[in-house]
């Protein structure tokens, strides 16, 4: 993250030069005090459970999830996951530090990394709270005083399991059941770290809460669990940023995000994901949306080798709404299979989807989605728009949307477009003095604007930087 870079330079060429991929590639010495044996057995799960000081119910839950994991098959669709060998991936890495509540207490090398990514700056300037996860433990957590006074809870997931057992047990993996798919089951068994947020009834958190995930250790998996409950009439904007330095071996990320947006509540969940290009990002995100509540997803997907990410809104409450605004940008060696799922499960619900993708340099983007309007969802509306941009003729862009309409009183529409940047448009911009590269970059940034405008300024800047970074030297 580079929030210190300022806003006014978004469009200037100098910004492109300032960015250096290296800042995302800082590796720390792979130090750890404890790294469990590779592979997955009930013994390992029990070991994790002890390490985590789990209550009994959580330990049993993990063992149950392991059983399910061993039964389920890998998906029969989507990107090829054959390179993934679970026996090879150490599922649990714990860094050398305990939970800190002051930035000064975070060990120097970890701190340097986060500093370079701009985390504390972001906090200092505009964010209500920051949780940063380094490998599997949350190392730093803080929240503004006034929010604490209002009863807002923002803590790491392990602490939440111990300190808020009722809230957690009632919601934990109820939104995303372990039977959903193999990687959710795996997550249930080995989850570690993550954030817990509870916003009490009627409380409006008007500045964004942020968490930051980072994978450092080679061959380690990250299985953080995010559980957010926005109670009736409350509102929240939560930002998740993800990044990992580059290693040669495959890294796995199988996190899980569960969001409960209660009646009349509002939640916006924003993600900028820039995992390194060897990451398998098999993340599961789901929201259950109550009566007249609104769930908004904003998602930018830039990193990873393979990504299979389909955030889902279940519109259970009458009059509930959801919006998804997302962009994927796949470059060389990347296969980003992303999309969105929505189930309309009550009257008068509505969904709006605006998905974009950019493929270049042999990268592959797939938009895969589901819109399901159930029989009881009378008078519901859904409108979907997908746009894909091909930057060269060696890349791939696929659109695979399923539209499942089970009743008549609905308004459903879906539109998709694939194409390249038109030569006429490039000529137009060049006739105004822009070089071909600048012209293309401007068009691409404009293409991504509907997403970047939904992000807080420093994230929008980062996204534009990422786009510039991706485009650098690859077009012209």
């Amino acid at each position: 993250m580079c929030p210190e870079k300022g806003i006014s330079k978004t469009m200037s060429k100098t910004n492109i030069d300032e960015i250096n991929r290296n800042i995302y590639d800082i590796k720390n010495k792979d130090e750890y005090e404890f790294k469990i044996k590779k592979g997955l057995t009930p013994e390992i799960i029990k070991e994790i459970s002890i390490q985590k000081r789990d209550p009994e119910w959580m330990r049993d839950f993990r063992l149950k999830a392991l059983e399910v994991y061993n039964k389920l098959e890998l998906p029969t669709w989507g990107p090829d996951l054959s390179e993934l060998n679970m026996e090879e991936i150490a599922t649990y890495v714990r860094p050398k530090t305990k939970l800190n509540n002051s930035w000064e207490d975070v060990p120097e090398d970890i701190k340097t990394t986060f500093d370079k990514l701009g985390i504390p700056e972001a906090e200092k300037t505009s964010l209500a709270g920051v949780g940063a996860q380094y490998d599997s433990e949350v190392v730093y957590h803080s929240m503004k005083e006034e929010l604490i006074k209002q009863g807002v809870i923002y803590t790491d997931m392990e602490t939440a399991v111990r300190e808020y057992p009722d809230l957690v047990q009632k919601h934990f993996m109820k939104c995303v059941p372990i039977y959903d798919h193999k990687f959710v089951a795996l997550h249930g068994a080995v989850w570690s770290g993550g954030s817990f947020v509870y916003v009490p009834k009627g409380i409006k958190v008007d500045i964004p809460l942020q968490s930051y995930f980072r994978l450092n250790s080679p061959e380690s998996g990250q299985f953080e669990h995010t559980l957010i409950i926005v109670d009736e009439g409350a509102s929240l904007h939560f930002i998740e940023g993800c990044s990992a330095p580059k290693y040669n071996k495959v890294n796995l990320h199988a996190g899980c995000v569960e969001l409960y947006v209660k009646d009349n509540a509002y939640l916006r969940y924003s993600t900028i994901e820039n995992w390194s290009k060897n990451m398998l990002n098999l993340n599961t995100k789901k929201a259950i949306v109550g009566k007249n509540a609104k769930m908004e997803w904003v998602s930018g997907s830039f990193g990873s080798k393979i990504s299979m990410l389909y955030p889902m809104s279940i519109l259970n409450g009458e009059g509930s709404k959801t919006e998804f605004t997302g962009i994927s940008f796949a470059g060389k060696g990347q296969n980003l299979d992303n999309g969105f799922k929505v189930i309309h499960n009550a009257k008068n619900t509505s969904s709006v989807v605006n998905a974009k993708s950019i493929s270049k340099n042999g990268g592959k983007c797939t938009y895969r989605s589901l819109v399901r309007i159930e029989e009881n969802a009378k008078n519901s509306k859904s409108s979907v728009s997908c746009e894909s941009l091909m930057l060269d003729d060696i890349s791939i862009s696929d659109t695979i949307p399923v539209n499942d309409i089970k009743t008549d009183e609905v308004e459903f529409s879906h539109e998709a477009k694939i194409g390249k940047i038109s030569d006429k448009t490039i000529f137009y911009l060049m006739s105004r003095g822009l070089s071909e590269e600048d012209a293309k970059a401007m068009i691409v940034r404009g293409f991504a604007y509907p997403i970047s405008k939904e992000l807080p300024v420093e994230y929008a800047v980062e996204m534009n930087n990422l786009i510039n970074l991706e485009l650098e030297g690859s077009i012209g």
Partner: protein
Amino acid sequence: MKQTLLEIKDLCVKAEDKEILKGINLKINKGEIHVIMGPNGSGKTTTANAILNNPAYTKTNGTINFEGTDITNSKTDEIARNGVFMSFQLPEEIPGVSVTNFLKYAKNKATGEPVKIFKFKQELKQYMEELNMNSNNMERSLNVGFSGGEKKKNEILQMLVLNPKLAILDETDSGLDVDAIKTVSKGIEMFKNDDNAILIITHNTKILHSLKVDYVHVLVNGKIVKTGEQELANEIEANGYEQYKHKA
């Protein structure tokens, strides 16, 4: 002696394997307004695109010099940065890029100097008022959802902001109502001075009523068949192109 800005010699141009321009000669000095008139398909737009070296057109013969530099094969953006501007007949839509950001960026490219945003916005606002443009358009995506008239005015706005040495206006008057044509003419007058020049490409003469034109060239079937002064435009308005067609 007037200083030559643009000089085209024996220019032949093909588009999609069809020969469009068949030997054009044209010389434009500083301080002059030139008009190229001609019926549809005579090669007017091709001339404009050839000057800006649009890669969709191929030059098979001839040269183009701008201020003594050969720009025949220069890249479009270099030609633009040297001070040639073209107002498009059909301006492209650029979603997600606001008018302000676009112009600021282009201005920066043209001058090579950083643009001071506050002053720049003031200047922009002033021009927009002069051109009867809604200043809310500043933050809208470039040309997206603009009406035909708004697009053309936006082209004139860009011309004023970028302040080129030579402005080529390709059918800027087509499809505009009387008031819009007046506004566009006003923009052209604001722009015009002794150090720059304008090349107006049109198939009708409406826009010429309120401008003092130095030369009128009649382009028919890829050739300039006659060059004259303002009266030539009036004559064409009265009699049409028929009499010139056999000459091509």
